[in-house]
């Protein structure tokens, strides 16, 4: 296997000779180099994140101070969407919809998985580049077009898609049900179809590269956990994204070609529509068959990054390497058979409810194992508290907090009273909006020197982390209480029900934490963009890590290594190994006489 990989990499050499002349276009725009494509994904993801967070601030302001007039609504939403500065009730739903769509797909999937898979897979396994540089480039540009189309839907007169990021029909299928289900929804579907296409292209590339292009000595069990996580994420994506595409296609058919896959017996706007025989529950099944694995596609790369950052900064091997791999595989497998826990009260057969409760509580086990392994990794370590390390520790903390409430939501009986309430919103934001985001930040701080050859400012990093940590808890922890108190999600205002009147203060508190927390992300944005140009120049291996990406030169070259690709002789976690003076041993250092590889010593 490794010999084959060796030959293939030789084949790539001819395309990466030093006489390769680059124009601005081929270097920065239509680059086929995985390192550049990774940065393209990252920056696009960050920009989409800014839009997504901006939207959340707008609708949080509406919730905290309902139906009040705000100048900023007039400026950003205009007089049609916010007449007199008061947000229109369907535009609230549009903001909530696009916020969810952007954050889950464009920021946390493309921006997290896309960035780090592209950056790290070839570097950490010892490959010159991805298996197909051309398809890689295509995947970024199709992603970019998907972003443009999604953003263009914001400027449509009838408004962007407004049926929630879950876009259940009939609300999303029938234009009369809500204005955003007209042109806005069509654009959403086109954008997502393109997004899915690029995601599949990326997944194929990552899988083939990991299987075929590992360097000599890089067996599967010598791969860093980051690569394992990204590899398995790609497999999950390959299996589940096509199902969302099929749901989207069938929805396009129902919307535009008169079919009734998801629609039946609808009376709206004074007339009976022609649809017969379809079921919205079918859409829910198809959607969540992707939707659930999708959240693991979001969290697994963050877990892989955390394993790497925790171990490098603790100067200790990741605890339980084999158990970590097994957990990743278990999570991946189980994630495909739990989707029904989003549908306990959908009207599906209650027996299915029992099945999905069972499988959902099972998936808690490998997740728990990973959390315990992370905690044990830092036990008796020599923790270097770089900003990336803080975010990784924050990842474990918020993953535990958010994951534990999943145990309540996964229990069908308990879900009856909390489904679609703020309890759910609290849960998924803690695991995705905070935990996975921390993983992304940890990755950015840790591999910034590798991406840009410069260091980010650590003090700004500390401020960014600590303020974010406090504000994040402040935003999402109170939501558990109002959720358990029955407050539904996606409500334009909570003032229509007197029973929610005593929750006004809670909502204001949440919004204030959100405003402050978002403002402090500016610290990160400044640090990130400033350091790209003016950051202190990085050395080759600033964090003294063992993995292969730190053996490449600081100045990027196509083909990653100037000469031959290094050979690998040991696993990636020889930190503070007894018998070595330095507290780390790079993977390229041959084993000594009688030395055992791996965790034994």
């Amino acid at each position, binding site marked *: 296997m490794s010999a084959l990989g060796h030959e293939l990499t030789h084949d790539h050499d001819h395309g990466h000779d030093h006489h390769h002349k680059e124009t601005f276009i081929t270097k920065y725009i239509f680059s086929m180099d995985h390192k550049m494509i990774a940065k393209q994904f990252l920056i696009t993801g960050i920009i989409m994140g800014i839009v997504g967070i901006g939207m959340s601030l707008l609708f949080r302001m509406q919730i905290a101070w309902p139906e009040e007039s705000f100048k900023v609504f007039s400026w950003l939403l205009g007089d049609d969407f916010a007449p007199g500065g008061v947000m229109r009730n369907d535009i609230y739903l549009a903001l909530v919809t696009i916020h969810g769509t952007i954050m889950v797909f464009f920021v946390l999937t493309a921006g997290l998985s896309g960035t780090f898979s592209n950056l790290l897979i070839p570097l950490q396994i010892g490959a010159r580049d991805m298996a197909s540089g051309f398809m890689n480039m295509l995947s970024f540009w199709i992603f970019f077009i998907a972003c443009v189309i999604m953003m263009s839907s914001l400027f449509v007169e009838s408004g962007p898609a407004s049926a929630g990021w879950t876009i259940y029909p009939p609300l999303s299928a029938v234009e009369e049900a809500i204005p955003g289900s007209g042109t806005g929804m069509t654009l959403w579907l086109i954008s997502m179809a393109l997004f899915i296409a690029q995601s599949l292209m990326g997944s194929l590339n990552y899988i083939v590269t990991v299987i075929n292009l590992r360097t000599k000595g890089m067996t599967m069990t010598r791969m860093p956990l980051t690569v394992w996580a990204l590899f398995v994420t790609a497999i999950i994506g390959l299996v589940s994204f096509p199902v969302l595409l099929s749901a989207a296609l069938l929805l396009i058919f129902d919307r535009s070609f008169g079919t009734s896959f998801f629609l039946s017996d609808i009376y709206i706007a004074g007339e009976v529509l022609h649809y017969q025989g379809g079921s919205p529950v079918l859409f829910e099944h198809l959607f969540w068959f992707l939707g659930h694995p999708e959240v693991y596609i979001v969290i697994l790369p963050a877990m892989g990054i955390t394993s790497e950052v925790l171990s490098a900064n603790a100067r200790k091997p990741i605890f339980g390497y084999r158990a970590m791999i097994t957990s990743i595989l278990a999570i991946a497998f189980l994630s495909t058979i739990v989707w029904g826990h989003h549908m306990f009260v959908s009207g599906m057969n209650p027996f299915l409810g029992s099945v999905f409760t069972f499988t959902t509580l099972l998936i808690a086990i490998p997740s728990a194992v990973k959390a315990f392994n992370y905690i044990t990794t830092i036990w008796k370590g020599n923790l270097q508290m770089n900003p990336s390390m803080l975010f990784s520790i924050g990842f474990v903390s918020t993953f535990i907090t958010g994951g534990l409430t999943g145990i309540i939501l996964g*229990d069908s009986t308990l879900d009856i009273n909390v489904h679609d309430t703020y309890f759910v919103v609290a849960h998924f934001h803690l695991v995705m909006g905070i935990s996975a985001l921390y993983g992304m930040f940890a990755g950015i701080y840790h591999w910034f020197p590798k991406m840009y050859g410069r260091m980010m400012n650590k003090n700004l990093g500390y401020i960014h982390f600590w303020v974010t940590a406090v504000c994040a808890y402040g935003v999402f922890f109170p939501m558990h209480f109002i959720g358990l108190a029955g407050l539904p999600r996606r409500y334009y205002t909570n003032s229509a029900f007197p029973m929610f009147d005593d929750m006004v203060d809670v909502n204001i508190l949440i919004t204030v934490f959100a405003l402050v927390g978002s403002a402090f992300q500016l610290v990160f944005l400044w640090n990130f963009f400033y350091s790209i140009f003016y950051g202190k120049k990085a050395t080759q291996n600033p964090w003294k890590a063992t993995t292969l990406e730190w053996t490449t030169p600081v100045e990027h070259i196509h083909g990653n290594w100037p000469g031959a690709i290094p050979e690998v002789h040991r696993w990636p976690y020889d930190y503070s190994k007894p018998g070595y003076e330095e507290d780390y041993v790079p993977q390229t250092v041959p084993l000594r006489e009688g030395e055992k590889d791996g965790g034994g010593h």
Partner: protein
Amino acid sequence: MTSLLIIVIVALLGIAVWQLTKIFDLTQSTNTNRDACESEIATDKDNNINGYLMYGFLAFIYIFTIYSVAKWGYMPFLTDSASEHGKDVDNLMWISLIIIFIVQFITQFLLHHFAFVNRGHKDKKAVFFADNDKLEFIWTIIPVIVLSVLILYGLYAWNNIMNYDEDEEVMYVEVYAKQFGWDFRYAGDDNTLGHSNVRFIEGINTVGVDMSDKNAQDDRMAKELHLPVGKKVVLKIRSQDVLHSAYFPHFRAQMNCVPGMVTQFAMVPTVTTAEMRERESIVDRVNKINKTRMERSAELVAKGEEGLGAYTFDYVLLCNKICGRSHYNMQAKVVVETEEEFKKWYNALPTLGQQVAEEKAANQPVEETPVISTPTENVEELEVVVDPTAVAAQIAN
């Protein structure tokens, strides 16, 4: 104006923080090469400060949790459920919450404590402890056992809620959802709901009952859901247009309303509205709510607008699945009362047969042109379009 000020203040705060950081940075040790990469890597001092901050953050998590429980702990629906199965739901919720609070307390402590105790410095060396199968086994098997208990209890409760004995004496009531309100249809003395489909919607027959069905004549429509205490009711749930969700939080009941399908939820209300209003926790809650309402009302009146009335407790039905612009205001009152009170209210409702006949009579003089056909003709026409057996099969009770 306020929002502009807030934005400006936050922006200035951000700039101030950045400048302070820059100043702080400049005041650091001057003998290291200011341009060196090392200046952006954590030093022992950084490790120390952040180690203490980790402990500080642990304190923050604990304190915030305690504060939240103290301030808002009265809000969640954890006691005083209004239905028979609600007891099981609440018990399971308590057990689950206690378990997760214990796990949260312990794991957050370990994580942040280890982060503090093991904060790095130059002379420290980490322990090369890469795996331990025994530990892995322990913390795999303990979650397995705990989760199995939760699963078994949960499944037992779920089965009791979802499956009711067909032979049991139940009352059928239809809950009909549409953009943006609720209708209720009682099954009448025959306790059988007449067949229905949106294609039968006409005039006063707003939920599309097939009036040719003999069971439909005695059905009664209402805008409030009244339920006799202690009697099992099977809610037959329909939707007119898009997905809605019939959410009765006090009863621990929720079921989506799916157009094209009839879903159902069975429950036994156990506490009358009057009784619930007397309960201490409810009285406290209502007082808290009214305090806020009176404050807000005063503000409105000062602005020249109408004030707000006081809130009295009532059971409520909310829509809990995004359904369009007024999703946030789709509500109906639910009343649980004694058998006599219920009978009194129920008997005052007109039957659908009466209502449709009255409407027909009222329309008669105007109805001369063949354009508007009589109800019977309408039904025949529709039968061509709709396959009655398919429709009936969907509404099988």
